[in-house]
Protein backbone atom coordinates (compact mmCIF):
# COMPACT_ATOMS: atom_id res chain seq x y z
CA UNK A 1 0.00 0.00 0.00
CA UNK A 2 1.31 3.46 -0.83
CA UNK A 3 2.25 5.88 1.92
CA UNK A 4 -0.49 8.23 0.73
CA UNK A 5 -3.13 5.49 0.99
CA UNK A 6 -1.91 4.59 4.47
CA UNK A 7 -2.18 8.23 5.52
CA UNK A 8 -5.75 8.43 4.19
CA UNK A 9 -6.64 5.43 6.36
CA UNK A 10 -5.47 7.47 9.35
CA UNK A 11 -7.55 10.45 8.20
CA UNK A 12 -10.73 8.38 7.71
CA UNK A 13 -10.50 6.36 10.94
CA UNK A 14 -9.51 9.44 12.96
CA UNK A 15 -12.41 11.39 11.45
CA UNK A 16 -14.97 8.73 12.37
CA UNK A 17 -13.46 8.11 15.81
CA UNK A 18 -13.22 11.79 16.72
CA UNK A 19 -16.75 12.44 15.46
CA UNK A 20 -18.04 9.67 17.75
CA UNK A 21 -16.06 10.97 20.76
CA UNK A 22 -17.58 14.42 20.22
CA UNK A 23 -21.09 13.21 19.50
CA UNK A 24 -21.87 10.23 21.73
CA UNK A 25 -22.48 12.16 24.99
CA UNK A 26 -24.76 14.62 23.13
CA UNK A 27 -26.65 11.77 21.44
CA UNK A 28 -26.97 9.81 24.69
CA UNK A 29 -27.87 12.82 26.82
CA UNK A 30 -30.54 11.93 29.37
CA UNK A 31 -29.97 8.19 29.01
CA UNK A 32 -26.68 7.12 30.62
CA UNK A 33 -24.54 9.39 32.80
CA UNK A 34 -20.76 9.08 32.41
CA UNK A 35 -19.13 6.99 35.17
CA UNK A 36 -17.17 9.16 37.64
CA UNK A 37 -13.90 7.30 37.13
CA UNK A 38 -14.06 7.92 33.36
CA UNK A 39 -14.63 11.60 34.02
CA UNK A 40 -11.67 11.71 36.43
CA UNK A 41 -9.41 9.99 33.94
CA UNK A 42 -10.42 12.23 31.03
CA UNK A 43 -10.02 15.34 33.16
CA UNK A 44 -6.23 14.87 32.87
CA UNK A 45 -5.99 14.24 29.13
CA UNK A 46 -4.88 17.81 28.27
CA UNK A 47 -2.02 17.95 30.82
CA UNK A 48 -0.82 14.42 29.97
CA UNK A 49 -1.23 14.57 26.19
CA UNK A 50 0.33 18.01 25.74
CA UNK A 51 3.31 17.08 27.95
CA UNK A 52 3.87 13.85 26.02
CA UNK A 53 3.86 15.85 22.78
CA UNK A 54 6.46 18.29 24.14
CA UNK A 55 9.01 16.10 25.87
CA UNK A 56 10.54 13.64 23.35
CA UNK A 57 10.96 16.28 20.63
CA UNK A 58 12.58 18.62 23.17
CA UNK A 59 15.11 16.04 24.39
CA UNK A 60 16.08 13.89 21.46
CA UNK A 61 16.81 13.87 17.79
CA UNK A 62 16.12 10.64 16.03
CA UNK A 63 18.76 9.51 13.60
CA UNK A 64 18.15 6.26 11.69
CA UNK A 65 15.84 4.98 14.42
CA UNK A 66 18.24 5.84 17.28
CA UNK A 67 17.29 8.51 19.83
CA UNK A 68 20.17 10.78 20.81
CA UNK A 69 20.12 13.54 23.41
CA UNK A 70 20.08 16.92 21.64
CA UNK A 71 21.64 19.61 23.88
CA UNK A 72 20.58 22.51 21.63
CA UNK A 73 16.94 21.35 21.76
CA UNK A 74 16.99 20.91 25.52
CA UNK A 75 18.32 24.45 26.04
CA UNK A 76 15.86 25.89 23.50
CA UNK A 77 12.90 24.08 25.08
CA UNK A 78 13.85 25.33 28.56
CA UNK A 79 14.14 28.89 27.24
CA UNK A 80 10.74 28.55 25.55
CA UNK A 81 9.26 27.15 28.78
CA UNK A 82 10.40 30.25 30.67
CA UNK A 83 8.88 32.50 27.99
CA UNK A 84 5.64 30.47 27.97
CA UNK A 85 5.26 30.72 31.77
CA UNK A 86 6.04 34.44 31.78
CA UNK A 87 4.07 35.59 28.73
CA UNK A 88 1.51 32.81 28.03
CA UNK A 89 1.96 33.93 24.43
CA UNK A 90 2.14 31.32 21.65
CA UNK A 91 4.07 33.42 19.15
CA UNK A 92 6.63 34.68 21.69
CA UNK A 93 7.14 31.09 22.89
CA UNK A 94 7.72 29.78 19.37
CA UNK A 95 10.03 32.58 18.27
CA UNK A 96 12.20 32.39 21.40
CA UNK A 97 12.43 28.60 21.13
CA UNK A 98 13.42 28.66 17.46
CA UNK A 99 15.97 31.46 17.89
CA UNK A 100 17.65 29.74 20.83
CA UNK A 101 17.65 26.48 18.86
CA UNK A 102 19.37 28.11 15.86
CA UNK A 103 21.96 29.81 18.06
CA UNK A 104 22.44 26.58 20.01
CA UNK A 105 22.88 24.52 16.85
CA UNK A 106 25.44 27.01 15.54
CA UNK A 107 27.40 26.83 18.81
CA UNK A 108 26.92 23.21 19.86
CA UNK A 109 26.65 21.63 16.42
Amino acid sequence: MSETARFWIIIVVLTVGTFLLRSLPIWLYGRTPMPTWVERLLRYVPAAALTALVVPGSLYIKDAGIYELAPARIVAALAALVVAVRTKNVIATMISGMVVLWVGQALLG
Partner: protein
Amino acid sequence: MVEDRVNRTGRSMLAGAKDVSPIILGIIPFGLVAGAAVIEAGLGLPEAIGMSLFVNAGASQIAATALFAEGAPLWVAIGTALVINARMLIYSASLAPILAPKATRRGKILLGHPLVDQAYAATMTQGRFRDDIDVVPYYVGSWAILASVWQIANIVGALAGSFVPPAWSLDFTVPLVFLAMLVPALKTHTDVEVALITAFAAALLVPVLPMQTGLLVAIVAGMAWGAMRHHDTELAQEGEAG
Protein backbone atom coordinates in the same frame (compact mmCIF):
# COMPACT_ATOMS: atom_id res chain seq x y z
CA MET B 1 -27.45 49.02 11.93
CA VAL B 2 -26.61 45.62 10.50
CA GLU B 3 -27.71 44.06 13.79
CA ASP B 4 -31.32 45.11 13.20
CA ARG B 5 -31.52 43.43 9.82
CA VAL B 6 -30.03 40.04 10.52
CA ASN B 7 -32.24 37.56 12.32
CA ARG B 8 -31.67 36.18 15.77
CA THR B 9 -29.84 33.10 14.48
CA GLY B 10 -27.40 35.18 12.49
CA ARG B 11 -26.89 37.48 15.42
CA SER B 12 -26.20 34.50 17.68
CA MET B 13 -23.64 33.08 15.26
CA LEU B 14 -21.91 36.43 15.06
CA ALA B 15 -21.83 36.67 18.84
CA GLY B 16 -20.11 33.29 19.01
CA ALA B 17 -17.61 34.29 16.34
CA LYS B 18 -16.92 37.55 18.14
CA ASP B 19 -16.30 35.86 21.50
CA VAL B 20 -13.64 33.53 20.10
CA SER B 21 -11.95 36.18 17.95
CA PRO B 22 -9.35 37.13 20.61
CA ILE B 23 -7.98 33.56 20.53
CA ILE B 24 -7.91 33.27 16.74
CA LEU B 25 -4.40 34.66 16.54
CA GLY B 26 -3.30 31.82 18.80
CA ILE B 27 -4.51 29.06 16.47
CA ILE B 28 -2.74 30.44 13.39
CA PRO B 29 0.79 29.26 14.31
CA PHE B 30 -0.71 25.96 15.42
CA GLY B 31 -2.43 25.50 12.04
CA LEU B 32 0.74 26.46 10.16
CA VAL B 33 2.65 23.80 12.10
CA ALA B 34 -0.05 21.18 11.45
CA GLY B 35 -0.07 21.89 7.71
CA ALA B 36 3.72 21.95 7.43
CA ALA B 37 3.97 18.65 9.37
CA VAL B 38 1.92 16.85 6.70
CA ILE B 39 4.29 18.06 3.98
CA GLU B 40 7.30 17.16 6.09
CA ALA B 41 5.88 13.64 6.42
CA GLY B 42 6.21 13.33 2.64
CA LEU B 43 2.55 13.93 1.76
CA GLY B 44 0.81 16.62 -0.24
CA LEU B 45 -1.70 19.43 -0.05
CA PRO B 46 -4.78 17.13 -0.44
CA GLU B 47 -3.71 15.20 2.65
CA ALA B 48 -3.12 18.42 4.61
CA ILE B 49 -6.58 19.69 3.64
CA GLY B 50 -8.25 16.32 4.29
CA MET B 51 -6.72 16.06 7.73
CA SER B 52 -7.70 19.55 8.91
CA LEU B 53 -11.14 19.58 7.22
CA PHE B 54 -12.40 16.19 8.41
CA VAL B 55 -10.57 15.53 11.67
CA ASN B 56 -10.89 19.13 12.86
CA ALA B 57 -8.80 18.59 16.02
CA GLY B 58 -5.34 20.15 16.04
CA ALA B 59 -3.26 18.30 18.61
CA SER B 60 -4.38 14.89 17.37
CA GLN B 61 -3.70 15.86 13.74
CA ILE B 62 -0.11 16.81 14.53
CA ALA B 63 0.47 13.77 16.75
CA ALA B 64 -0.88 11.31 14.15
CA THR B 65 1.13 12.98 11.39
CA ALA B 66 4.36 12.94 13.43
CA LEU B 67 3.90 9.28 14.42
CA PHE B 68 3.18 8.37 10.79
CA ALA B 69 6.34 10.19 9.70
CA GLU B 70 8.35 8.19 12.25
CA GLY B 71 7.07 4.95 10.76
CA ALA B 72 4.70 3.96 13.56
CA PRO B 73 2.08 1.32 12.69
CA LEU B 74 -1.30 2.78 11.74
CA TRP B 75 -3.00 1.54 14.90
CA VAL B 76 -0.44 3.37 17.06
CA ALA B 77 -0.85 6.65 15.16
CA ILE B 78 -4.65 6.36 15.29
CA GLY B 79 -4.79 5.07 18.89
CA THR B 80 -2.56 7.84 20.23
CA ALA B 81 -4.56 10.51 18.39
CA LEU B 82 -7.86 9.11 19.70
CA VAL B 83 -6.60 9.08 23.29
CA ILE B 84 -5.67 12.76 22.83
CA ASN B 85 -9.19 13.43 21.55
CA ALA B 86 -10.85 11.49 24.35
CA ARG B 87 -11.09 14.81 26.20
CA MET B 88 -13.91 15.62 23.77
CA LEU B 89 -16.08 13.08 25.63
CA ILE B 90 -15.97 15.35 28.67
CA TYR B 91 -16.60 18.51 26.65
CA SER B 92 -19.51 16.84 24.92
CA ALA B 93 -20.97 15.52 28.18
CA SER B 94 -20.81 18.95 29.83
CA LEU B 95 -22.29 20.73 26.80
CA ALA B 96 -25.04 18.13 26.26
CA PRO B 97 -27.49 19.57 28.82
CA ILE B 98 -26.99 23.04 27.30
CA LEU B 99 -27.22 22.12 23.61
CA ALA B 100 -29.18 18.87 23.28
CA PRO B 101 -32.58 20.16 24.54
CA LYS B 102 -32.40 23.10 22.13
CA ALA B 103 -31.51 21.13 18.98
CA THR B 104 -33.82 19.31 16.60
CA ARG B 105 -33.50 15.54 16.34
CA ARG B 106 -31.71 15.89 13.02
CA GLY B 107 -29.57 18.82 14.18
CA LYS B 108 -28.38 16.76 17.13
CA ILE B 109 -26.67 14.28 14.79
CA LEU B 110 -24.21 16.94 13.64
CA LEU B 111 -23.99 18.90 16.87
CA GLY B 112 -20.82 17.11 18.00
CA HIS B 113 -18.66 18.02 15.02
CA PRO B 114 -18.14 21.74 15.87
CA LEU B 115 -16.81 20.75 19.31
CA VAL B 116 -13.29 22.20 19.40
CA ASP B 117 -11.46 23.45 22.50
CA GLN B 118 -12.09 27.15 21.95
CA ALA B 119 -15.76 26.79 20.90
CA TYR B 120 -16.29 24.69 24.02
CA ALA B 121 -14.63 27.26 26.26
CA ALA B 122 -16.60 30.18 24.79
CA THR B 123 -19.96 28.37 25.00
CA MET B 124 -19.36 27.16 28.55
CA THR B 125 -18.04 30.42 29.96
CA GLN B 126 -20.00 33.01 27.95
CA GLY B 127 -22.60 31.85 25.40
CA ARG B 128 -24.80 29.80 27.71
CA PHE B 129 -25.34 32.73 30.09
CA ARG B 130 -26.66 35.14 27.46
CA ASP B 131 -30.39 35.46 26.94
CA ASP B 132 -30.19 37.82 23.96
CA ILE B 133 -28.91 35.01 21.70
CA ASP B 134 -29.57 31.30 21.01
CA VAL B 135 -26.85 29.04 22.32
CA VAL B 136 -26.81 26.48 19.47
CA PRO B 137 -26.07 28.99 16.66
CA TYR B 138 -23.69 30.77 19.04
CA TYR B 139 -21.72 27.53 19.42
CA VAL B 140 -21.82 26.81 15.68
CA GLY B 141 -20.78 30.38 14.88
CA SER B 142 -17.79 30.24 17.20
CA TRP B 143 -16.67 27.03 15.54
CA ALA B 144 -17.25 28.35 11.99
CA ILE B 145 -14.76 31.19 12.35
CA LEU B 146 -12.24 28.97 14.17
CA ALA B 147 -12.53 26.23 11.54
CA SER B 148 -12.15 28.70 8.65
CA VAL B 149 -8.99 30.21 10.10
CA TRP B 150 -7.75 26.74 11.03
CA GLN B 151 -8.28 25.51 7.47
CA ILE B 152 -6.51 28.49 5.89
CA ALA B 153 -3.59 28.25 8.32
CA ASN B 154 -3.21 24.54 7.51
CA ILE B 155 -3.13 25.26 3.77
CA VAL B 156 -0.64 28.12 4.15
CA GLY B 157 1.50 25.90 6.41
CA ALA B 158 1.43 23.10 3.84
CA LEU B 159 2.36 25.44 0.98
CA ALA B 160 5.07 27.28 2.90
CA GLY B 161 6.40 24.15 4.61
CA SER B 162 7.58 22.66 1.33
CA PHE B 163 9.95 25.60 0.78
CA VAL B 164 11.61 25.57 4.19
CA PRO B 165 15.09 23.97 4.15
CA PRO B 166 15.63 21.11 6.67
CA ALA B 167 18.51 23.04 8.28
CA TRP B 168 15.90 25.35 9.85
CA SER B 169 14.72 22.41 12.02
CA LEU B 170 11.10 23.32 11.44
CA ASP B 171 10.08 20.07 13.17
CA PHE B 172 10.98 21.75 16.48
CA THR B 173 7.96 24.03 16.10
CA VAL B 174 5.81 20.99 17.00
CA PRO B 175 7.01 20.62 20.62
CA LEU B 176 7.11 24.42 20.92
CA VAL B 177 3.50 24.90 19.92
CA PHE B 178 2.39 22.21 22.36
CA LEU B 179 4.52 23.79 25.09
CA ALA B 180 2.72 27.09 24.52
CA MET B 181 -0.62 25.28 24.95
CA LEU B 182 0.51 23.18 27.90
CA VAL B 183 1.43 26.02 30.24
CA PRO B 184 -2.08 27.55 30.48
CA ALA B 185 -3.57 24.02 30.78
CA LEU B 186 -1.72 23.46 34.08
CA LYS B 187 -4.37 24.87 36.39
CA THR B 188 -4.11 22.76 39.54
CA HIS B 189 -1.45 20.99 41.58
CA THR B 190 -2.60 17.67 40.20
CA ASP B 191 -2.21 18.99 36.63
CA VAL B 192 1.44 19.80 37.38
CA GLU B 193 1.98 16.35 38.89
CA VAL B 194 0.41 14.75 35.83
CA ALA B 195 2.72 16.78 33.58
CA LEU B 196 5.82 15.75 35.57
CA ILE B 197 4.87 12.05 35.62
CA THR B 198 4.06 12.12 31.90
CA ALA B 199 7.29 13.97 31.09
CA PHE B 200 9.33 11.40 33.00
CA ALA B 201 7.49 8.47 31.39
CA ALA B 202 7.79 9.95 27.90
CA ALA B 203 11.52 10.73 28.28
CA LEU B 204 12.16 7.19 29.47
CA LEU B 205 9.75 5.14 27.37
CA VAL B 206 9.58 6.85 23.96
CA PRO B 207 13.13 5.83 22.98
CA VAL B 208 12.77 2.22 24.17
CA LEU B 209 9.22 0.98 23.62
CA PRO B 210 8.60 -0.69 20.26
CA MET B 211 6.43 0.72 17.45
CA GLN B 212 6.34 4.29 18.88
CA THR B 213 3.96 3.15 21.61
CA GLY B 214 5.90 5.16 24.22
CA LEU B 215 3.81 8.27 23.68
CA LEU B 216 0.54 6.42 24.19
CA VAL B 217 1.81 4.65 27.32
CA ALA B 218 3.15 7.91 28.79
CA ILE B 219 -0.18 9.71 28.23
CA VAL B 220 -2.20 6.88 29.82
CA ALA B 221 0.24 6.76 32.77
CA GLY B 222 -0.18 10.50 33.33
CA MET B 223 -3.98 10.26 33.14
CA ALA B 224 -4.02 7.34 35.59
CA TRP B 225 -1.85 9.31 38.03
CA GLY B 226 -4.22 12.27 37.78
CA ALA B 227 -7.31 10.14 38.34
CA MET B 228 -5.66 8.56 41.39
CA ARG B 229 -4.58 11.86 42.92
CA HIS B 230 -7.66 13.83 41.95
CA HIS B 231 -9.11 15.90 44.78
CA ASP B 232 -12.69 16.90 44.42
CA THR B 233 -11.90 20.20 46.15
CA GLU B 234 -9.83 21.14 43.10
CA LEU B 235 -12.94 21.22 40.97
CA ALA B 236 -13.83 24.46 42.68
CA GLN B 237 -10.59 26.12 41.59
CA GLU B 238 -11.05 25.15 37.97
CA GLY B 239 -12.39 27.41 35.30
CA GLU B 240 -13.24 25.53 32.12
CA ALA B 241 -11.61 22.18 31.45
CA GLY B 242 -9.99 23.41 28.22
